[in-house]
């Protein structure tokens, strides 16, 4: 671990030129990830970044770790294979709203339910960037794009609600313009045992600029967002004077003193789901932070535990045993 402790952000920069558009939110995320990598105590040869296809999926090329830029939507399957083959690796997956929720929605559902020990960063810019500006499964209804000239009629999906529905054991949300918050959330994800799902609101300034301004613009951010912090009162506002209280199934804005304490580890993901659905109510603050964090058996560890158990009860398999199992006879 001596090497790991000595690492700095610079050690995680690869020798490849970063080729995102100038001003893209991806730069901030890359910078933040390189920073936290130096502090999680894992040597860089034990780290592997996996991605699918899209702007976000170029990410592994810019990390000086092991990396696999795979095919569209399938990163969860590659990550599952890598982590299962070698559970000692710290496996990180980078995807986007199209890659992770449209073409790869099926795989995303299954990696989350299995609880494979992989950290997933989903860059959500509510648009297809690499194919130059078509609406995505998270684009708001009515968004005018090249493929929806009269406005998209698709109803959008909410990534956090989706992850919760799949039984994810860690679900969080952060935003590219709030580096400190992103750092805290990513560190919490890094230390979670099991699948960690982090939605990162990321601005695409070419095809969907300002998609998150309504609540994320710095002058309104404090009043229009709330940071869900485990076991802390749900307070927000510039002066931290407002709070959230959940009455029945409905969240309500109250004074800070009346705010409920946020618990991301309730038996049911119900409370987290209530929070995730505030997105569609513009009078409520947009929740960021940690929606869910619970412990559950880990897929890759359980699988290797079975292999060890089989070896100890049946004895390790040899070629001789393999061939001669079952009934045999000899011709002389």
């Amino acid at each position, binding site marked *: 671990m001596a090497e790991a402790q000595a690492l700095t952000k610079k050690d995680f920069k690869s020798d490849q030129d970063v080729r995102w558009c100038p001003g893209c939110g991806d730069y901030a995320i890359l910078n933040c990830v390189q920073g936290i990598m130096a502090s999680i105590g894992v040597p860089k040869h034990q780290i592997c970044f996996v991605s699918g296809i899209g702007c976000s999926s170029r990410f592994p090329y810019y990390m000086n770790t092991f990396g696999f830029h795979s095919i569209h939507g399938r990163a969860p399957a590659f990550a599952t294979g*890598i982590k299962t083959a070698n559970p000692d690796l710290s496996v990180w997956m980078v995807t986007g709203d199209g890659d992770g929720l449209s073409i790869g929605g099926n795989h995303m559902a299954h990696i989350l339910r299995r609880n494979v020990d992989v950290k997933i960063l989903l860059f959500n810019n509510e648009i297809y960037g690499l194919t130059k500006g078509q609406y995505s499964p998270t684009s708001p209804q009515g968004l005018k794009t090249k493929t929806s000239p009269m406005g998209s009629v698709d109803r959008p999906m909410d990534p956090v609600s989706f992850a919760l529905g799949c039984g994810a054991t860690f679900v969080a949300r952060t935003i590219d313009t709030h580096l400190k918050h992103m750092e805290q959330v990513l560190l919490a994800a890094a230390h979670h045992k099991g699948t960690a799902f982090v939605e990162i609101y990321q601005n695409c300034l070419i095809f969907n600029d300002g998609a998150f301004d309504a609540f994320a613009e710095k002058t309104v951010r404090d009043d229009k967002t709330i940071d869900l912090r485990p076991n802390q009162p749900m307070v927000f506002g510039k002066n931290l004077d407002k709070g959230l209280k959940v009455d029945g199934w409905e969240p309500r804005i109250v004074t800070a003193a009346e705010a409920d304490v946020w618990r991301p580890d309730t038996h049911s993901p119900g409370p987290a789901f209530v929070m995730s659905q505030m997105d569609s109510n513009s009078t409520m603050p947009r929740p960021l932070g940690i929606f869910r964090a619970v412990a559950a058996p880990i897929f890759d560890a359980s699988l290797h535990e079975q292999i060890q158990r089989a070896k100890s009860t049946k004895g390790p398999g040899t070629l001789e045993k393999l*061939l001669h199992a079952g*009934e045999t006879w000899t011709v002389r």
Partner: protein
Amino acid sequence: MNPTRERDVQSFESVVIRFAGDSGDGMQITGNQFTHTSAVIGNDLATFPDYPAEIRAPAGTRPGVSGFQVRFSSSDIHTPGDQPDVLVAMNPAALIVNIHDLKPGGIVVVNTGQFSDSDLKKAALAKSPLTDGTLSGFRVIEIDINKRVTEALKGTTLSSKEVQRCKNFYTLGLMYWLYHRPLETTIKWLEEKFAKRPELAEANKLAMQAGYNAGDIHELFQGRYEVLPCTSMPPGTYRNIMGNDALAMGLVAGAQLAGLQPFLGSYPITPASGILEALAAYKHYGVITFQAEDEIAAICSALGAAYAGCLGFTSTSGPGVALKTEAMGLAVSVELPLVIVNVQRGGPSTGLPTKTEQADLLQAIFGRNGEAPIPVIAASTPADAFETAVEACRIAVQYMTPVILLSDGYIANGAEPWMLPRIEDLKPFPVKFVEPNPEGGFQPYARDAKLARPWAKPGTPGLEHRIGGLEKAHLTGNISYDPDNHEFMVRMRQNKVMGIRESIPTPNVFGDSTGDVLVVGWGSTHGAITSAIEELRKKGRKVGSLHLRHVWPLPKDLDKLMACFRSVLVPEMNMGQMARVLRSEYPEQNIISYPKVQGQPFRTTELVKKIESLLEK
């Protein structure tokens, strides 16, 4: 059948029995037990299970008929036989569907307990085939098996439904008596199978014994028959093996010979699921099996595992290969070892899931976007699937390439005696991963003499590198859009795959090495072709056959072998795909295609007839 009378026991060289019943009647178990017992007493044998895609089609109907054909012999055989000598029919549908295949004068055992008017109606029969002349020319043995089983199990605690489920073991017992087989192997199997429900083991044993005794007591048959052990089998240790099982064992063995942990990513699909099931039971061999959410995730997980240093496998059938195609292209691009098993079935689309075909050959060789060469090899018999799977592993790791391994439904579910290889004859091909912190740095796309790139395992210090599906620069592996580099890399990958030719043998010609007709085959046509050549050579014809294990790239010098014959016949269970490949590779040869696309294997007689027609020309 050449009977030689010896008191009341007639001896035959080879017998074919077909068990046929409703898909719920347990005919596959009955057939497998008869096969297993015959294997253990030393017959050579071959089997052909033929069952519907529906798990339980409406009971008693023609689409619900499930059949299992077994041929057992005292001499060396290669096919399950063209025509049964004995047909066991558990109901009218089974009788009417199968009776036209029975040899003239053959024995048909009919369960009359299942021939009521409503049974006939379910089989869409206006009149009973027992009385309308359908069975004239056959020796008909009528037994009310329903009633006999009920009598035999009178004292047990089983429900009448459970009692009727023992009918197949009564039938099995009867056949064991008729052909002088011991009951011990099946008794042992029943005791293991029903260890937790001993009353079921006991009932099935009773039913089998009752069937056996019935042969003795009721004088149903004119006498008994025997098929002596096969003495021409080479000395060695044998076991009875099915194709899917042999293939799964070959993958485990291949990984061990490479010194790697095996990882199978797979999604259930007929007729390949048996491979996933077999490997899931091999955890003590260190096998990781991952039942993925779909075919795509199955191959992607296996390729991810290969990147991480496992030997990656994925097993499927044609429709699954279609879904895996994009990931196969990525495997070509990132140059990692991966074995893709295609147990072919009738196509296109969902096609004939439980029937056999060889129509995915061109898909295997060419079916990807871009220039994406992948070596293709094919198993020819159930036992051969073991060696072929080991060979697939060897090519994959030595050339750092995906390999497609073709099997088919006929091989997957068929069984034959397998002479076990000696462990010392299995040559290891250990993999050498890149060492940590190599002097002068690490180049992920450098090449060795075979043009294979190095395999660098994540977790190794100093080897941090990125790979992906974008075109890579020679040596560094960095993304490159350079036109000259792209052509260079396309040619590099092509040359690497074609270079596999240097490590594969030219196959031997079976039969005459010069003559009139050379039959070139690949895959599961091996048995029928070999039998046809044997038969024709006995008649003095100058014919030979050549069977390809390596179907892409093709072995060297095939043209020289073909040139020794007047014409080359290529029988295939497709519209002539290998013939098309051979014509494009060897345009100067006279290549004749012989297609059959019925979901059924070739019969020896069909091939003999076809070859004879060429000889007459």
